Structure formats: C-alpha cells, structure tokens
C-alpha cells in the first residue's frame, strides 16, 4: 500500500484549535453553542415585528410618523451591534508554536533551578510590574503561553482571550478586547429599544382605550400584550446589565476581574489599568483604537494529506494533519491529554509541520502538569 502526499491549500481557520465554529469561509467566528443566540435573535426580531405591525400604523397617524422611523433606526443599530459582537473575533490569542513553547519551557526550567526529588515544582507564575503594581501572569497549559495581563482562558471556547470579560451565551461568543464596545453598545441600545417599545405600547393602549375601551383595545391589538410581557422582563435584566457594565467601564475593570475580586479588598493591589478618571476610562474603552485580529483566519496554508494509491484522495483529511496541540513541543500532560498519549510523551517527536526545523541539541525539560504544580493543585482542591 503506497501513500502519496498531496499538498492542498486550506484556509487557516480550518486548522485552528479551539472550540469555535466558523462560517462564511472564516469571516464569521462564534462559539459552538448557538441556541441561546438564536433565541435572542428571535425575541428581538419578533418583538420589533409585532411593534411595527400593531403599534406603528396607529401611532404614525395619531401621533407622529417619526416614531416608527426612530424605532426602525434603533432596531437596525441593535441588530448591527448584536451581529458584530457575535460574529467577530473577541481577541483570541493564538497558541504557542512548538519552538516558542520549548523556549518558554526552558526559561521556566532555568528559573526554577533544581527541584529536590519528590517535591512539586513551584507554580508557573511570572511577576511583572505594571504602573508600580505587581501583577502575576499565569501560565496556560492549554495554549502553552504566559497569559498577558487581563487575558483569561475561556473553557467553553477553549481559547485564551485578551482582556477577557466573560463568555456570553446570549450573543453566542466570548466578550473580550475586540468586541467589548460592541457588546456594551448592544446592551445600551437594546435597553433604549426596550424602553422605547414599552413606553409606546403603553401610550398606544391608553390612547386606544380612551376611544374604544380597554378590553376592545386588547382584542384589536393582541400583539401588544406579548410585547409588553417580553419588554417587561427584558427591561430589568438588560437595563441592569447596562448599568453594571457602565460601572465597570468607568473603573476600567472587566467582569472577570470583578468576579474574582482582583482589585478589591484591602490586601489586593489597586487596579493598575485605571486612569483614576471616569472620563478617561470611558474614552479608552469605548473610543480606543479598533484592534485587529491576530488570528489570520482567511490566510492560506499548505496541508499535506496522504492519499492511498488504491483509494481516491479524501477531500477533508483533517485527522491526518497533526493538530497544533499535538506537535513537537514537549507535551505537558494535563487534564486534556488522552491517556494513550501519556506514555508516548517521552518518545522523540515523530511528525512535525515543519520538518526542516529542529532545535539542535534541545533538552526536553522535566514534564510539569497542573497536578504536579503546587498552587494549581491547591486551588483545585479548594474548588471541590
């Protein structure tokens, strides 16, 4: 049985690790679970359609034609912000390539020195000084990098995200550095839209009831009841969320930091990223530069796929291409390593995406894992 290597060009998004789904040939990037996102879409589009169908004809004639026009503009803005938040890259940090991972391992090894046998190596933490505060950078075992400040690993999407805020199921994506302002504008505009629709529903019902009576009005425009119900419940949650995020922005904090209490409490450091000025903080978050995506999703790369001589070449042979996480870096066993891979970790690397590159004479440092790491294992015990 002879195998012939066929090289074909694929887009880089097809080979990205992590649990994202991509659409439109890499232009759209979302999380895997999209059910709640469809619900959000349905609620917004449904409620607005009812508003345009039932309320707007009456209000346009009896009050002002500007009412439906403004509602339409607001609706379009809400949809644009929602789609922008959901479809864009939140600021995902690509995983370290094998050489970088090896380099970091060697630095850690050199810094730790000799660990006496039987003792756990110290936790993988790097201290940096930011604006005269000491901030600890943690090592990510999945991405094999020291996370930049404010970055965090999202377990749902299996990516490290820069300036990680939270993973929002309602938008079906993580909220991070690149799409935080769109998320905030979405919640803000949705609050306005909800208040707007709720107010004009009440106005409409009152105006009609004066002429026809309350019960008749409800019979004539049944959609109003639905709208009022949806808006009432949405109002509390969305307006509350907008208020919360306004508070976070004014302090230049992320939801993640707020939940963990990174900058609160007496013994903790003060937030080193805050400008101590509400206006400056707001301007930085909302009017800052539009950061580019560092994931080159639509770039082309070569993929080598073996084609058997007695079988037609398979069109999608992703299983034969080594994934980024299983490459020649000294494989650190962690909770994601399948059991059968663990015995082969000490074996020399077999396949490599760049066969010509070899760190000459590189020693594989003793393997560390979250379980052998002192601090991580204590933290794990505490959560259980």
């Amino acid at each position: 049985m002879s195998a012939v290597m066929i090289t074909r060009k694929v887009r880089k998004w097809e080979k990205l690790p992590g649990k994202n789904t991509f659409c439109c040939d890499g232009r759209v990037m979302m999380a895997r679970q999209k059910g709640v996102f469809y619900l959000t879409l349905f609620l917004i589009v449904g409620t607005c359609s009812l508003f345009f169908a039932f309320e707007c004809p009456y209000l346009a004639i009896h009050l002002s034609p500007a009412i439906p026009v403004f509602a339409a503009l607001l609706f379009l803005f809400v949809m644009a912000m929602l789609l922008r938040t959901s479809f864009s890259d939140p600021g995902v940090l690509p995983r370290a390539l094998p050489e970088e991972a090896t380099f970091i391992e060697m630095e850690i090894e050199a810094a730790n020195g000799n660990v006496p046998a039987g003792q756990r190596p110290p936790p993988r933490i790097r201290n940096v000084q930011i604006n005269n505060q000491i901030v600890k950078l943690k090592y990510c075992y999945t991405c094999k990098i020291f996370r930049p400040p404010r970055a965090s690993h999202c377990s749902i999407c299996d990516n490290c995200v820069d300036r990680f805020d939270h993973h929002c199921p309602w938008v079906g994506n993580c909220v991070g550095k690149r799409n935080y302002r769109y998320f905030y504008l979405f919640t803000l505009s949705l609050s306005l839209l909800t208040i707007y629709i709720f107010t004009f529903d009440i106005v409409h019902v009152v105006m009609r009831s004066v002429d026809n009576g309350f019960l008749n009005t409800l019979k004539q425009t049944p959609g109003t009841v639905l709208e009022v119900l949806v808006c009432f419940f949405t109002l509390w949650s969305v307006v509350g969320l907008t208020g919360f995020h306004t508070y976070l922005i004014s302090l230049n904090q992320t939801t993640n930091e707020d939940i963990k209490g990174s900058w609160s409490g007496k013994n903790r450091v003060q937030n080193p990223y805050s400008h101590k000025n509400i206006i400056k903080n707001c301007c930085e978050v909302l009017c800052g530069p539009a950061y580019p995506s560092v994931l080159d999703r639509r770039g082309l790369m070569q993929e080598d796929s073996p084609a058997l001589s007695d079988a037609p070449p398979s069109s999608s042979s992703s299983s034969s291409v080594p994934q980024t996480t299983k490459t020649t870096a000294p494989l650190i066993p962690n909770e994601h390593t399948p059991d059968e891979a663990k015995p082969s970790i000490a074996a020399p690397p077999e396949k490599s995406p760049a066969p010509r590159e070899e760190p000459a004479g590189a020693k594989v440092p003793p393997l560390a894992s979250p379980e052998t790491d002192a601090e991580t294992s204590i933290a794990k015990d505490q959560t259980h």
Partner: protein
Amino acid sequence: MTAAAVAPPPLSPPPPSPSHPHPSLCPTKAISRSQGLVPAVTDGNMATEFHNLQELRHSASLANKVFIQRDYSEGTTCKFQLKFPSELDSRIERTLFEDTVKTLNNYYAEAEKIGGQSYLEGCLACATAYLIFFCMETRYEKVLKKIAKYIQEQNEKIYAPRGLLITDPIERGMRVIEISIYEDRGSSGSSSGSSSVSGSTAR
C-alpha cells in the same frame, strides 16, 4: 513605478567585526541569492520578496530561534523588551537590534494612541453602526502595514546578511518578536547549535 526596469541595489556586505567568526560563505550566498531573485521594492511584490528571503533556508539551516518578549511595565499597550538576547551577541550589534525594537515600539504606540484621531474614528464609526469599517481601513491596520514594510526592509538590509530573520509579531499573536538564527549548512553548524542550550538561560 518602473519596478521591472530598475535593478535591485546591491546589498552591502556586513561590516567586519573582530569577534565575529561567522563564515563568509553565508552572507555572500544570501546576497547572491537575494540579488538574483528579489525584484525592486514595490508594495505588490512584498510578499514575493519575503518568500525569497525565506528561501535562505535552502542555503542555510535554521539553528535556533530567539523570542523577544512583551514589556508590560506600562500596561497592556503593545511594547517589546529591549533586552539584548545573548544568542545574538555574536551575530548583530546591540545598537542595531535596539533601534529595530525601539522603532517597532514607536509604531505600535502610534497605532494604539488614544487621542483626537482615535476619538474621531470611534465616534464616526459608532454613528454609522460600525458599518464604515467595511469600507475604511482603521488606523491600526494602516500602521500594521507600515510595520510589515519596515520589518521587510530591516530583514533585507540588516538581518538577512547576518543570517537572521525577524518574524512580524502579528504572526505570533503580538506576543513575541521571533528572530530566527540561520547557520550555513555544511560549515560549523553544530557549534552554534550547541550554544542554544546554555544561551537560553538569559532572563
């Protein structure tokens, strides 16, 4: 731009340094290859040129890679450390390296500057529901193009003749500046390879 008609300027050989035992074979080979293959610098040909620089590998083998880490002392803005790695000690002058990193840091600072222009861009974009980003290039993207051009230029003029290659940080997630060290195949390749183990203890 009469790109096709203009011959590429001859790359000057590296200045002789007393402590530099680098085989003369490597720079001249790199120069002759790049002279033969590299067309004159135009925007459209940048990708081709970079591809040809990557063909250094045919005459030289990759010995090691050095990673310049980010400097977070001023916050999360993109800035790289100026610390000179020991692996490059015998390859390039410290001042040249520092100039490159300082210029890159300045470019990134310009891209991320929060001032009048970024406010204007932000407000205009918000008013159009950010649809304008489909037509317009953001300031950051413009600066990234400048950076790519600068790195290309630095590689051609300074780093490739010394057997080094800088990778644009954006290809590494803006985390590191990756500098690849090449050694000429067939000559004293193993001597510089073994230094990579002890050399990486620099912190």
